[in-house]
């Protein structure tokens, strides 16, 4: 398989980032791990945004991924990271295949609200499940990888390297997806669904595929979140969590596969300092940031880097 220049850069950055993990302070390594996990969920949001759909319920698959990982550890005694993540993704794909049948009938605000409703139903179910710790959630067991158990204190760094590798792979795949016929068809649907239909293509089928794929990607993020934070709770499915994903997606924009990663990292850095410096009004800072982006950078931070070029091209 031949790699394009963009893909080479993505892989190169990943190698640098993973290497940087060995010299960076531990808190930064952890912050980046969490940011990358979130970025995966945001990728799911962005995939749907490219098709013109805004979901206020991507937390659903984030949560399913996380809980599948946590529950497999608890009830099935599975500790292998790869198996756990696969179970998480598999669970989300199954659910998405079912919900997708209904969801693909809806557009615009109705899609947003229905996705929110499903996410909140899962939240309600989890809150009711005292066996799963209700709102307190439960701790996720320590992971192993192909029989190897990371030494105490080394797990965060090891997980960081793994998530960087997965992110790089995901970035390459998503980059290809965004340029594939299916990916472009999503943009076409956003632009003009009737025309797509009259080209002989089924918009619902494309959206369905996209919905399921986005769910899988988001669940992967949820699984990583569970493994890195070591704890899961129903908050993952709460609509405010989903709102945050939309926030980060807008922050980065949909122009490039790297944008959600960069936006998620930036968001994590801004938020952690906002919480520390202005603990009483960090939400306000986030709000103003979001407004500023919508007003000045309607295509997200990415337009800072390419805006001029693209406009000139147009």
């Amino acid at each position: 398989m031949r790699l394009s220049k963009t893909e080479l850069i993505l892989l190169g950055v990943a190698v640098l980032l993973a290497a940087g993990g060995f010299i960076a302070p531990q808190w930064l390594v952890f912050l980046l791990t969490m940011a990358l996990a979130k970025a995966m969920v945001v990728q799911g949001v962005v995939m749907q945004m490219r098709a013109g759909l805004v979901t206020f319920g991507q937390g659903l698959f984030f949560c399913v991924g996380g809980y599948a990982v946590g529950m497999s550890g608890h009830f099935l005694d599975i500790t292998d990271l790869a198996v756990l993540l696969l179970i998480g993704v598999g669970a989300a794909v199954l659910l998405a295949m079912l919900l997708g049948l209904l969801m693909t009938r809806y557009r615009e605000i109705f899609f947003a609200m229905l996705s929110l409703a499903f996410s909140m139903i899962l939240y309600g179910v989890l809150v009711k499940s005292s066996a799963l710790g209700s709102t307190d959630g439960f701790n996720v067991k320590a992971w192993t990888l192909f029989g190897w158990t990371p030494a105490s204190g080394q797990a965060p760094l090891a997980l960081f390297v793994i998530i960087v590798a997965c992110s790089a792979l995901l970035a390459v795949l998503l980059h290809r997806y965004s340029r594939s016929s299916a990916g472009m068809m999503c943009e076409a649907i956003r632009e003009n669904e009737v025309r797509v239909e009259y080209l002989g293509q089924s918009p619902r089928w494309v959206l369905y595929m996209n919905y399921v794929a986005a769910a899988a990607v988001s669940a992967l993020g949820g699984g990583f979140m569970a493994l890195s934070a070591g704890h899961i709770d129903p908050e993952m499915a709460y609509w405010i969590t989903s709102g945050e994903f939309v926030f980060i997606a807008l922050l980065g924009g949909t122009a490039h596969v790297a944008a959600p990663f960069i936006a998620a990292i930036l968001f994590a850095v801004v938020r952690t300092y906002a919480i520390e410096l202005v603990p009483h009004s960090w939400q306000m800072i986030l709000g103003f940031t979001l407004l500023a982006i919508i007003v000045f950078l309607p295509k997200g931070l990415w337009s800072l880097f390419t805006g001029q070029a693209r406009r000139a091209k147009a």
Partner: protein
Amino acid sequence: MNNSKKSMLKHPLAFAITAAGLALSLSAGVQAAENGKFRIGIVTFLSGPAAGPFGEPSANAAKVLVEGLNKGQLPAPYDKLGINGAEIEVVIIDEAGGAAKQVEEFRNLVQRQKVDAVVGYISSGDCLAIAPVAEELGAMTVFYDCGTSQLFKEDKTPQYVFRTSLDAAVDNIGAARYLAKVRPDAQKVAGIQQNYAWGQDSWNDFTHSMEQLMPKAKVVESQMPKVFQGQYGAEISAISVKRPDIIHSSFWGGDMEALVLQANARGLLEDATAVLTCGESAIDRYKDQAPNGMIIGGRGPFGAFAPDNELNRWFKDKYVAAYKTAPTYPASKMAQAILGLKHAAENAKVESGKIPAPLEIAKAFKGATFESVSGTVQMARAEGHQAMQGIAYGEYNYDPASKKGSVQNVIAFAGECVTPPDGTTALEWIKAGFPGAQCN
């Protein structure tokens, strides 16, 4: 635009990543300096519905106490400046945002802010998530409020994690014991809890305790409205039609105040006696909207139930002077956690002015007995990591002349009477009929 002629560096992706990398390395460079001060990370709710009733009094208590400690104003045995002679510096963090975020912020506190200890956490979920991280990082951590029974069941061999607040089971065992003394004839019991772990666990502990202590009383209704719902009309009707004698609720904060107001306005609290395990936190706000005789608790000997000792008088005076209102139980609990930490650090046997290492503090904290605003605290459970204290309940009484609420008919139960022993969970202990309980 001809892409192929661009050099690698001019590629927008490379440009973006370079920019992001620069920002990151800048942020990584910003680190707290080691300044010889004893740095404490305080984590409590600064936003959301828990901020008013819990977060703000807690943060205020920390400020009052730390200021007093840094000036050496506290009565003995806490008259030493700061902690072990080192000035205390506080970093306050908002607890809102869920457990995963709190784990991240906890790591930031320990690894970036280089705090010497973390005191905080109201939410049980947060405590559960933080405990293994604290153990992993070897960070001295004191939980001051969360009540989950799961904490030391999960963290089986705790080293750095301590809890100076009581297990939530204590609240409900205490409530049942109080009822058995003051309302032994009650026949019908109803409950209304917030629909989340706290409410579900509280109701479970309470009903099982009642089965043991008042076997004749039957549960006639159980309502679990959504947390922060605010409107309880339907729930109040549903409880009213069952005509209960006792209504148990573990509601807290705004929800509790709204429930009392609405239930009282509809006459429910005249026909039935309410038992509010967190009722004390609004004692200054009920005025005449709560009936006299309503049973309230303060989650331990805190707030209005705190004993009248020199330490508590000092704390109350300072708190009232600073914030024009008496400290409620969350404030007392925060003070207790910081005092426990100071006690341990100063008994860690390092020379004055030096900051002991976490392990040294932990060794001194384990099994310690220290004085607090709530009287003497024994770290007597979970192998010396969990505080054991008594609990008190009393009846609300409003004096229209002074427009002040107070508690009457206070009955205190000793720690040994309401706290499950090590090696058994609260629920097992309750179901077994409280074996080994020593009650006065």
